[in-house]
């Protein structure tokens, strides 16, 4: 094994995976599913090729610190689109994490990647960083910068380089990365224009008129209301000022508030709690929760990821909900995999598995309840499936069913909806060239739909696609699935006449606060 010193144990870790690697029969079915292979055409940038490199490390024919291993393992988006098409059931995502772990031990990852992971993983660093982000966002400077950059971005030079599959030079890369970062920050802003101006300007379709808009509807006239459960111990719908149909013994859910989600998308967390409550779930707080560890696991820092998992297991066991609600599919996939992440942990292994079984995406929880119908939203939208929802968790139908349930909504298909947007955690920042190429293809298909808004279910995707659209000079907003449902409910008066944006019931606020213990 040509792996040096302390890496011996790490090498053994991947060696133990040899049986899993051998499951790969080299059939090549994964090639067309891989966004990087499709663009670069190099088999080393395909799942099969990467598995082959891992196998070569196991066989002692390749050094984990080699350029080949580092480059191609590093270039993987981790979208796991290869898994559903693999007839041999190779657990690619798991093997990739181990490979990154091994690669990271053989050679220190880039400063930027280390820095970002450090920030996300450390509460006292993350919160001020997110605050700074919000402050910066509030100044409007990122949005302005994005508009200025959008002209340059569309120039031919960049596309030409992309067409040849080449990354820009170091300085150009840093500039691109900084520009993208600002655009992503700008893209995390709420879609005020969509919900206020555009919707207001557009009357609902005739058949939905009866339901009426939230603002006009009185508490008594809106559908499905007036039967609120009265939970004394937790902020039930009635206490929250919500009125909905709830079963006598409503299932409880605890929301993973997340780091980016809590920092830049607090509105999505709040909306999640409201729509779940409206659908008869009792949202309970899980204090002391922290980062899910997804970015660390994907980046190969498995020890950090395990620590975070252990902490979250404790936090959520404390709340003991029936389900763990996820509105960031990257986090959802990570928490659903806690079982295998901690498989070798004798103390926590079983608990991790049991907790992971209770993980649900918010779309699944809603779809299980119908979901409850709200007021019409006369919009044309298109849906982009987050990789970690569709490929990693196999959740395909529930988001579609939730969209179908919103009256008046026209859902147009998105070409390439199953393909990664190029966001992939911090990929857009570490690989601006390739990530930008993948992202611009996504932007092109979004623009081709003529939709009023793009709907998805993951903060990373929202920022990546939103930034891409803005840099392309488009004003199409990106919204989270629950934001749409929330708006529909609000207009239907499901939250009562007094509920409006920013006027959030205390119970909801408690359930959507990030953990405080770190």
């Amino acid at each position, binding site marked *: 094994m040509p792996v040096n010193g302390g890496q011996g144990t790490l090498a053994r870790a991947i060696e133990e995976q040899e049986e899993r690697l051998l499951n790969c029969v080299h*059939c090549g079915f*994964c090639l067309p599913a891989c966004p990087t292979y499709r663009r670069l055409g190099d088999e*080393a940038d395909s799942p099969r090729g990467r598995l082959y490199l891992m196998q070569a490390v196991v066989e002692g024919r390749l050094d984990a610190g*080699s350029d080949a291993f580092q480059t191609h393992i590093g270039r993987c988006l981790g979208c796991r689109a290869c898994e559903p098409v693999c*007839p*041999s059931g190779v657990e690619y995502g798991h093997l990739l994490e181990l490979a990154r772990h091994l690669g990271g031990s053989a050679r220190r990852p880039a400063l930027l990647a280390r820095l970002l992971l450090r920030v996300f993983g450390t509460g006292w660093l993350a919160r001020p960083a997110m605050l700074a982000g919000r402050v910066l966002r509030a100044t409007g400077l990122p949005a302005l910068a994005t508009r200025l950059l959008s002209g340059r971005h569309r120039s031919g030079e960049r596309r030409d380089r992309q067409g040849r599959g080449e990354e820009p030079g170091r300085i150009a890369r840093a500039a691109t990365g900084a520009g993208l970062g600002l655009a992503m920050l700008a893209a995390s802003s709420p879609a005020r224009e969509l919900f206020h101006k555009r919707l207001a300007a557009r009357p609902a379709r005739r058949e939905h008129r009866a339901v009426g808009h939230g603002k006009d509807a009185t508490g008594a006239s809106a559908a499905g209301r007036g039967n609120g459960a009265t939970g004394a111990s937790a902020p039930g719908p009635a206490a929250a000022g919500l009125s909905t149909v709830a079963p006598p013994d409503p299932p409880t859910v605890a929301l993973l508030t997340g780091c980016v989600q809590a920092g830049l998308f607090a509105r999505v967390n709040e909306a999640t709690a409201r729509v779940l409550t409206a659908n008869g779930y009792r949202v309970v707080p899980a204090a002391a929760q922290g980062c899910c560890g997804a970015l660390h696991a994907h980046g190969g820092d498995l020890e950090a990821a395990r620590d975070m998992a252990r902490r979250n297991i404790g936090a959520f066991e404390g709340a003991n909900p029936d389900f763990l609600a996820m509105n960031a599919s990257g986090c959802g996939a990570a928490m659903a995999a806690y079982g295998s992440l901690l498989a070798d942990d004798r103390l926590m292994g079983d608990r991790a598995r049991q907790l992971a079984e209770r993980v649900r995406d918010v779309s699944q929880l809603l779809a299980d309840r119908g979901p409850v119908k709200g007021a019409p939203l006369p919009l044309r939208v298109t849906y982009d499936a987050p990789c970690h929802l569709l490929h990693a968790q196999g959740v395909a139908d529930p988001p579609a069913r939730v969209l179908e349930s919103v009256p008046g909504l026209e859902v147009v298909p998105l070409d390439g909806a199953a393909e990664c947007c190029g966001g992939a955690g911090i990929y857009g920042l570490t690989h601006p060239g390739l990530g930008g190429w993948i992202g611009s293809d996504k932007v092109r298909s979004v623009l081709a739909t003529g939709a009023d808004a793009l709907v998805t279910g993951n903060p990373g995707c929202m920022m990546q696609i939103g930034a891409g659209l803005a840099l392309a000079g488009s004003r199409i907003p990106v919204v989270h699935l629950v934001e749409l449902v929330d708006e529909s409910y609000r207009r239907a008066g499901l939250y009562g006449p007094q509920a409006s944006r920013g006027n959030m019931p205390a119970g909801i606020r408690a359930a959507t606060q990030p953990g405080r213990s770190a």
Partner: protein
Amino acid sequence: MIPATLTKSLVEICGRGGVIVDEERLLVYESDALTAYRHRPGAVVLPRTTAEVQGAVTAIARHGLPIVPRGAGTGLSGGAVALDRAVVIGTARMNRILEIDAANHRAVLQPGVINAELSAAARPHGLYYAPDPSSQTACTIGGNVAENSGGPHCLKYGVTSRYVTGLTVVLPDGSVAKLGGQGRDAPGYDLVGLFVGSEGCFGIATEIEVGLLPLPEGVRTLLGIFDRIEDAGRAVSDIVSAGLLPAAMEIIDGPTIRAVEDSVFAAGYPTDAEAALVIEFDGVEAGLDEEAARAAGFCRRAGAREVRSARDEHERMALWKGRKKAFGAMGRIAPDLLVQDATVPRTTLPSILKGISEIGKRYDLVVANVFHAGDGNLHPNILFDRRDEDELERVERASKEIMQLCVDAGGTITGEHGVGLDKKHHMPLIYGSAELGAMWGVRRVFDPAGVMNPGKVLPEETAPEWTANGEEQGAAEPVAAAVAAP
């Protein structure tokens, strides 16, 4: 390692991202989907256009290096493996559909277009591309042309060569030739037909014109469950003898059923059965039910314990998915497998299947069969673990016996996977020195310098001697003439 001057010219032609020379990065090109052979290429070039292919071929030829064309590397005969550090020219970036001419049921495409994506692109026009190899979601049309690929539905619709109507090819000397095109029936020799199936030895097809078919209006899919594989084989023979022409008839045997059911593509086959026979009819709705009912009757009379029919498109896709992904699912039961591809006359199927099973038992090997029964095209998969040397040797011997068994029954050594590296030494089982000599001669017409995919298809020891001026020595010499059936 190729000379730096060559690297420089290749980069000028194909761009930096289109040239791979780093030894470690080249590792992943060691094998195609037949992992028994590993040979690292000297470099990989990924051109985008006919002109770039032409430039690359010319540059490589100037340095006297051999060239291996490669599509998606899903081939099962080692055909895309680079011997002698050859330079691989990959078509992965040549993936544009250039034209869909719905009015004339034809399309023009680059070789890197994926088979299933061509059908997907043709679907809005009410058309599809008929040849459907099991790897159709991944394999490229260029690779299909090189291998003359088949697939389950070629029972009714025929193989790749029936659908390729024109080719633009870059010949090994760097010149470009246009063969056929603009529909079928071009005058002169059928050079398109000759090029199809030439396994990358004649040149690189850079633009391909194919014929498309209207999508059938209706489909009926049946699944017969059998306790004995011979009974399934008999049902196939009976159905054909009765004059029925299903679009496809596929047999999946017990071990394969169990592998598929254990994979992510579980199709709902009963795991205690010894054979599942998938039968599909397509065409206009009228009459389909009657044909399906007749076929179901033949299955029952041959001893099927149960005959199911797919109730909807979802069930139908599941039945096919299980069949099409069977090869990959084998990875579940053994780390390595050797898949064979012999074709036998359909009537010999029951006895051949029995013979294969006996050979497997004699060598203590698991042989899983999944095959195009309607065509008599067998795919015995011998499962093994290459780390077990004794087993490896038994695999070799069993493999050869199976092939001999099929040839003795009037069959051939490969029905659709190609000869490649894997079966070239078996070519003398079916062809004598005259036929092999003729094939060498034709190869030399296309590739006088012997630079395209050397070491494939034809065993070197059968190559005729050529004189210095290119004349074949002794070509006119009489060959022993024993007349037998072709």
